């Protein structure tokens, strides 16, 4: 108790710094990956991508980010064992943040495909084992999260597979693909707006003091869907068939319709990323803030203060602006193999899956769902070649990340404990 009152301000400041560090890392790498597809397809420039990211990442974090945050904060660890020593939990959360951010930075410089989500969860488990005791880890919850890492890319893959099939049936495989592309484009864009907003609205926006009933949510989502569809229609309506361009590749004009459509999925990706991944950085921060501000109350279930969500969004944007744009450039260059029509299907599927996961409070990996979605396109025979060895690398990086985050969190935990007593 004394420790918290004596060092409260310092610990709070540390939490904010570590939280910013972690969210900075997320923005520098993770978000850049999520938006790379749109940049690679030439749908948006890097500048536009950063602008979209700033706006929609924020919106995603503030509007839909709360659920995942509470899972990170309260869902994985049961702090009942240290109810009399709230400072232990504070050290633990600080150590976890620092460990995850540190591991993320090491992996980013080495070029390993680790996930921000895996880093923080590994770190939390690591701290809980030494700080509270192995029984305090909610292993069933952890297993659920691990299972979702397999299930969520599978869902993303299934959706993208179906989307590719639908574009084929409705647009590509018809007498006049361009005409049909323009006809169905607003419909696809409607889906982007409708699904994302519906999933976001469905459980209500309690933390923003907005309560919508089921039908109201439906109506509002449909309205947003129609609005995006109208904007989309405005973008694609003037695309003309230029026969000269089609000589090399017959679907050049059709792809031109999909290019502006990716603008919408880019927004959706940023929104989805914000709703899910921002929690990795601010979940532990929120926990520290709630313990200190309540004077050592470990078990309380206060609402997440809005300023923390905003702080997390800022950290991510900072990471994107300082380093992420460079990552985005390299990622974008290397995924030009994905045509706009395929990229659109993959991004729409991924964004939908991530937002869906966010609503259920599951911390999932955006990048890996995107990988699942791209695999779905590949299984629909829509991509020249996919290197399946990468799947092995991903699994390996998962296996390594959990213990690496855990060990580092343990070291940082004992260090902090040593410093503050």
């Amino acid at each position, binding site marked *: 108790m004394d420790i918290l009152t004596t060092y409260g301000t310092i610990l709070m400041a540390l939490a904010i710094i570590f939280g910013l560090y972690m969210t900075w890392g997320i923005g*520098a*790498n993770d978000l*850049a*990956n999520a938006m*790379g*597809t749109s940049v690679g397809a030439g749908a948006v420039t890097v500048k536009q991508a950063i602008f979209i990211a700033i706006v929609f990442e924020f919106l995603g974090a503030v509007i839909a980010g709360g659920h995942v945050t509470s899972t990170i904060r309260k869902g994985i660890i049961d702090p009942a064992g240290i109810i009399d020593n709230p400072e232990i939990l504070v050290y633990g959360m600080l150590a976890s943040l620092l460990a995850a951010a540190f591991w993320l*930075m090491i*992996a*980013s*410089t*080495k*070029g*390993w*495909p*680790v996930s921000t989500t895996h880093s923080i969860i590994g770190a939390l488990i690591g701290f809980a084992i030494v700080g509270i005791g192995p029984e305090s880890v909610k292993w069933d919850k952890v297993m659920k999260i691990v299972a979702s890492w397999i299930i969520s890319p599978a869902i993303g893959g299934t959706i993208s597979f179906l989307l*590719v*099939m639908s574009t*084929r049936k409705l647009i*590509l*495989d*018809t*007498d006049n693909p361009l005409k049909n592309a323009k006809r169905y484009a607003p419909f696809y864009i409607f889906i982007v707006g409708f699904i994302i907003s519906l999933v976001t609205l469905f459980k209500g926006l309690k933390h923003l003091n907005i309560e919508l009933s089921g039908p109201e949510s439906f109506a509002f989502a449909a309205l947003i869907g129609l609005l995006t569809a109208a904007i989309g229609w405005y973008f694609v309506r003037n695309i003309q068939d230029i026969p000269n361009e089609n000589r090399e*590749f*017959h*679907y050049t004009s059709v792809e031109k319709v999909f290019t502006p459509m990716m603008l919408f999925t880019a927004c959706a990706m940023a929104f989805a990323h914000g709703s899910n991944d921002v929690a990795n950085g601010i979940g532990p921060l929120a926990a520290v803030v709630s313990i200190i501000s309540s004077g050592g109350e470990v078990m309380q279930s206060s609402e997440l203060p809005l300023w923390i969500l905003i702080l997390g969004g800022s950290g991510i944007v900072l990471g994107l602006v300082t*380093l992420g744009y*460079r*990552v985005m450039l*390299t*990622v974008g260059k*290397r*995924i030009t*193999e*994905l*045509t706009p*029509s395929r990229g659109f299907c993959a991004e729409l599927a991924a964004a939908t899956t991530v937002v869906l996961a966010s609503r259920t409070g599951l911390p999932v990996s955006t*990048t*890996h769902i*995107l*990988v699942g979605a*791209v*695999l779905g396109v*590949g*299984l*629909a*025979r*829509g*991509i*020249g*070649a*996919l*290197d*399946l*060895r*990468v*799947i092995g*690398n*991903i699994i390996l990086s998962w296996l390594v990340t959990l213990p690496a985050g855990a060990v580092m969190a343990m070291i940082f935990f004992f260090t902090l404990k040593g410093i503050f007593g």
Partner: protein
Amino acid sequence: MPFRSTSPLSRLLRKSPFKPIQEHMRAVFVCICSLPPLFEALFDQDREKVLEHAEQIRNLETEADKIKSRFRLNMPKTLLLPVDREDLLNLIADQDSLADICENIGKILTYRDMEVPHTLKPYIDELLEGTIEVSGEARKMIEELDELVEVGFGGGREIEKVSKIIAGVRKSEHNIDGVLNRTRQELFAIESELNPVDVMFWYKIIELLSNISDQAENMADRLLLFLSR
């Protein structure tokens, strides 16, 4: 700090294998198109020109070979492709043998200063024309591969289009069979007037030319495999 992209996505996506196949086919087609000038020089008895054209074909074949090797080295077994990897490798092997045949013909003409029976010329010309036609159709077929990826190699109009081209290749090959028969009959009719070893080589050349259209038809069959689910 060197921040490298950790995106599994950009590693997952490999360059489309259909681009190098198309590039290779274009190179092979240039090889085949060099055959008429080679024979023209032979019938003109212009030894120097014959050597020059043969050399040119040899260089083109080497170019195609390089594309093929690069392609094969970039096709690990872990790739997820819209078509069977084996079929793709066989397809490029078929294409490559077209260039090899051209090179062989060039070699034969350089090794031997052959006697040229002028009554054979119209037959050879017709044969060459047919060979170019059937190879051109085969190349057209390969150029459609990108579009086939877009429609997933299944059903619909693009498939109909490619099926038509494939039917065209087969028809051209069938026509060449007729020309081949007539050419051989003509060669048989005049063979007593020629040097026996030259006759042997002429039969060989006719056979090699027939191999080109055979291989083009093989390619059509491979592509048919892609289309069948």
